[in-house]
Every structure is written in C-alpha cells, then in structure tokens.
C-alpha cells in the first residue's frame, strides 16, 4: 500500500514537473521582451538592462527554470509586473472566487444531472428521456459565454431578477471577513445574512452558466450508467425480494451509478476551476480565469506560469482525491486498499 502511494505521488510530481517544464519553455520562447513591457514606453536601454537583471531574465534558461522550481517550493511564484503584486498573493486573493464559482457550478450540475437523469430513466414513458436528451444535447452545444450574455440581457437587464455582471458582491457592500474566502460561506459564518443573500444572488447566474457544460456531460453519463445498472442482475434480484421498482431504483440503482460520477465530477471540477475563464470574463468575476486572460495578453510570465502550476497541481490533487473518495465509498476498493 505504501508503495502504491509513493508511486502515485511520484507520478503526480512528474506530471506537475512536466506541466511546468512544458509551459516554462513554451512561454520563454516569446518574441516580446517582458523587461521592455515593465519599463514602459519611455524606458531607455539602461533601464531595460537593469530590469532584465532584476527580473532574472539575463541568466541562462535552464538556470531560470531551476530558480523557478526551487523558489516555487518556498511558495514564491514570482512577481507580476502587470498587476504589481507577488503571484502567490494574487492566487491567494483570486482563487477563493474561482473555487466558490466552480464548486457551486459543478455541484449544481451534479444535482440537476442526477435528478433529471434519474427521472428520465425511472419514468417508463419516453417523453422524459427524450426531453433530457434534447436538453443535454443543447447544453453540450451552447457556447457558455454566449449563453451568459443572453442570460444577462434577459434576466438581469430586462427583468432585473439578478444583478448585472458585477462580480461577487454589490459594490456597495463590503466583503465578509475572510474565513474560507468563499463569500457565501463566510457571510453565514459571520452572521451577515444580507451579505449572504447578495453574494448568493451574484453567484446564481454565473454558477448556472458554469453548470451547463458539466450538466450535459454528467446527465448523459449518469443516464447511461443508470440504464446499465438497471440491467444488472442484482437489480432484478432485489425486485425479486419484493422491493418496489422505486425502492430498488433509489436504494440500489442510484447509489451504484453515482459511483461512476465521482471521477468525472472530479475532473470537471478541476477543469472548471481553471477553465472558467469565459464565464468569469463575462460576469466580471474576479477569479483566476480572468486573471489568466489578462496575463496572457500582457505576456505576464510569472502569472501564467503560476496559473499553469496551480492548474496542474489542482488536476493531480483532484484526481487523487477522487481515488480517495472511491476508497471511502466503494467497499470493494476499500477492501483492496487495506
């Protein structure tokens, strides 16, 4: 078992290293000169030279990489000259926003996908199933950023049900004290219910938009998994023991099928955490995604590098956590792990 853990850890570390290596050399092959960017339009050669020195751009590439790896172990991810803050600080302030959005979005997707797929499979009539398939195909095919725009136009501008694309909170409100960094959680923990409702209102539209893609994916997966599970012998056996179709469905088919969602959900979570760029951009959500876009356009190495490292780490961690969940939830694997 220890061997297995060590091996997994090794693979994870190699993967993160690979991702950093890949991005590092890809990014350092850039035509633009970051020092010139920082120096600004009127910088003379002397300024550029000393800036290159200060930014560590004058040393050989492999040395730069080594420096980068060693300092990132100490939590130093470099300095963002386009934002004026250390990258670690940026990640610290931006990540909770992304996590809150990603978690809510994926959780919504999981709930909706399981509920609708379950109804579609459970109903004997074809209507529910056909509706689900149409809905999920449309969800799969809709560009999320476009959907966000339409939602904003209809629901917040025209009907005023939701706030405009203004980020996590009404500008007039102060964010709750930082406990977890998630505004909805923090506001409840500190008893600021007005802030909670405001944060929730701001969260609903972006989270729903985020949820569209994962919903399409998960509802398909869960539907086919449920159908397969319903064909498993133990389902008929349970029926033969006198359980009603509904009980068998809820007590046996659904829990067994849910297992198959764990890995997919984990991957979706990792993907939305780092890939929610578009939705963040449209809703003015101050997360990692919108940070990344600006950093790429501004060629802010340190930030892009940091985000990629973060993304790789997230992926590896999340897939590891998914395995842990399996061990906890699935008795067969749990037994194997002992």
């Amino acid at each position, binding site marked *: 078992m220890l061997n297995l853990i060590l091996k997994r850890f090794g693979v994870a570390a190699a993967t993160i290293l690979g991702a950093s290596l890949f991005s590092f050399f890809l990014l350092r092959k850039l035509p633009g000169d970051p020092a010139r960017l920082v120096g600004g339009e009127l910088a003379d050669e002397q300024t550029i030279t000393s800036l290159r020195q200060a930014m560590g751009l004058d040393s050989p590439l492999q040395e730069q990489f080594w420096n980068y790896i060693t300092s990132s172990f100490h939590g130093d991810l470099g300095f963002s000259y386009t934002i004026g803050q250390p990258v670690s600080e940026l990640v610290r302030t931006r990540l909770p926003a992304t996590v809150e959005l990603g978690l809510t979005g994926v959780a919504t997707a999981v709930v909706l996908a399981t509920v609708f797929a379950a109804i579609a499979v459970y109903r004997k009539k074809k209507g529910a199933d056909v509706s689900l398939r149409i809905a999920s195909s449309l969800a799969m095919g809709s560009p999320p950023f476009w959907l966000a725009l339409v939602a904003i136009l209809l629901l917040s501008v025209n009907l005023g049900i939701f706030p405009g694309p203004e980020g996590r909170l009404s500008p007039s409100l102060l964010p709750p004290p930082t406990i977890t960094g998630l505004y909805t959680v923090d506001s409840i923990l500190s008893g600021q219910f007005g802030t909670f409702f405001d944060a929730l209102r701001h969260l609903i539209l972006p989270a729903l938009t985020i949820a569209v893609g994962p919903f399409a994916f998960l509802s398909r997966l869960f539907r086919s998994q449920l159908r397969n599970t319903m064909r498993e012998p133990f389902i008929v056996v349970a029926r033969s*023991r006198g359980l009603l179709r509904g*009980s068998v469905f809820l007590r046996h088919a659904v829990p067994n099928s849910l297992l198959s969602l764990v890995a997919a959900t984990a991957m979706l979570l990792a993907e939305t955490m780092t890939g929610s760029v578009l939705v963040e951009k449209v809703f003015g959500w101050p997360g990692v995604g919108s940070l990344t876009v600006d950093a790429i356009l501004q060629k802010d190495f340190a930030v892009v590098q940091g985000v990629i490292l973060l993304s790789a780490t997230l992926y590896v961690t999340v897939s590891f956590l998914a395995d842990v969940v399996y061990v906890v939830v699935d*008795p067969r694997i749990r037994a194997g792990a002992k």
Partner: protein
Amino acid sequence: MTESNASTMTIDAANAAPERDTLLDVRGLRTEFQTARGRVAAVRDVSFTIRRRQRLAIVGESGSGKSAMAMSIVGLIQPPGRVTAGEIRLGGTNLRELSDRKLSEVRGGRISLVFQDPMSAFDPIRTIGSQMIESIRVHQSVSKRMARRQAADLLGEVGVTDASSRLSDYPHQYSGGMRQRVLIAMALANSPELVIADEPTTALDVTTQAQVLELLDRLVTDRGAALMLITHNLGIVAGFCDSVKVMYAGQLIEESESRALFASAAHPYSRELLKCVLRTDRRQEGLLSTIPGTLPDPTQPFKGCSFEPRCPLGKGNPLCQGVEPPLATVQGPHGVQLAKCHFAGQLELKEDQ
C-alpha cells in the same frame, strides 16, 4: 405464427391430484420479446401446476426459455420482454392481474427466487446485513433490530459461522459458495410457499454444488415450501425432484415423474439430454453441448416440430416438418408421461429402425 394446440391437460391433472393441493397454476403463458428483428416468443403457451411441497424440475438448454418463464411468473420479465397471454394463479389470485405493488408483496414473500450467479446477485456497495434486513422489513413489520436478529439466525442456519458479525461484511468478502448460501437464506427469510431456484449451482464448483443443493433441500423441506428447480443439468435432478418438465424452444415438450423420465424418457430430446448426463458421468467433458445442432431461430415462425432439425428420429420426416405435434399422453412403466412428439410412446420402436 402458428397456433399451437396447447394442451390444457397436465401431468398433474392426469395423475388426478386433489385440487386444493394446487399451489401455482400456470395456464397458456406466453412471453414475447420485442427485438430489432421482430417479436420473439421466449415462452410459448406453457401450462403446468405446482402442488404444495412439490419439487419440480424444469430442464432445458440455455436459451430454451426456462429463466424467462420463471421471471414471467413473478412479473419481473424486463422490457422489451412482456407476458402477452396466460394466467398465473397463486392460490385464487391471478398474478397477472395484480398491481406491481400487490405483486411485490408476493415476490420474496409467497414466492422467492434463488438466482444463478451469486456474484452479481448482491448490491456490491451494501452490506449483506443491510440487504437481508431490507428483504425482511419489506415483508414483515419488525424493527431493524429484530430484522437483524432474524437475519443473523438465517445466516447461521445456512452455515455462515460468526453470523452476526458477518452481517456487516460486503458481498465481495464472501466466497461464491457462501454467497449462494446467503441468497438461499434471503429467499427463505419470509417463509415462502414456493421457491424458484434458477440454476442455483451452475456457478459453483462441484463439491460446493452438492452442499448447496443439500442445504436447499433441507431448508425447503423444513419450511414445507414447494420448489421449482430450473436447471440444464439433468444430473442433479435425479433423486432431488418429484417431477420433471423438459423445455425446448419455449415449450414444455415432456412432463414426467422423475423416476419415469430417468427410466424411459418420452421425448427424443429428453433422451438426448439423458445421454449427455450419462456421458458426463463417465467423466467426459462438456455438459449439453454434445447434442448436435442449435436451438431454432426464434424470430422465424415454426412449422411442424421445433426439434425436427436436430431430432435423430424425425429429421427430414415430412410429418415432423409440417405438423406441430400435440402433447400426447404416454403410459410408461413408471406412470403417466406427456410428450410433445409425433412418435410419443413409440420411441424404442423408432430407434430400433
């Protein structure tokens, strides 16, 4: 599709058993599957009865419709399968007319099933205990604690040592034989009147098979339940069941007391089956694959006898090819037998030719 002239007469009727003793009465049961290539009848107008405490074996090759018949009886035939005709009377009620809710009181209550593959018969992520408790509490209004005690007792009864602590184990922690025992225990949890055992020993090794059968035998006897044993292995039927019905291509083609069948089968197919058993006894490989040919294509309508293409006696015979044989009564040395064959009663004669 040809109309079969299904006989309403059964061996039981022929033996003139008292009516009040009848537990299950199946009449004209027909089960069809809707497939991409058309409708397929898996069970074709089957009629029979089971008396209380009777032990009945249904024998046939895989694909002959045995399991479909069993599932049809408890109303668990899965779509696209559907029971399209017939009556299934348990006591006075026609099970086909019951709502699913009423029917599920019967399932696992008055009629229990024991399945073929103990590996896949359990929900893999629930403990054995919770599944047993669930089965008990569906039918009996007892507390969880009581149900658990009952479950432990049952487990002890089927020979699981340290029963109460093994209730918390998951299915995969049991061996195949043990799982089959648990399955039997669950089937008997609510004192059923009829146990349908569908190939209960196929997945087990030979020594375990014997133990499981012995267990089944004992428990069924203790509880006074009737047993319907579905198998493709005639070998285990001898000495275990009172009567045997042989199924071929969805039809019952021979009905005999088991002594009578083993002494002299009334249908050529049964004879072939018996030959296989004998060969197996002589330690030869393979069980039933040795009957030459395969089951007829169920999507094609039958003309004549369904066994004709494989029948050592009737192959090529214009009568067998053209006319479906009736279920004929044969008076054998060990009692009345029924066989769906044009040559019923004349098999020895024909064989000698």
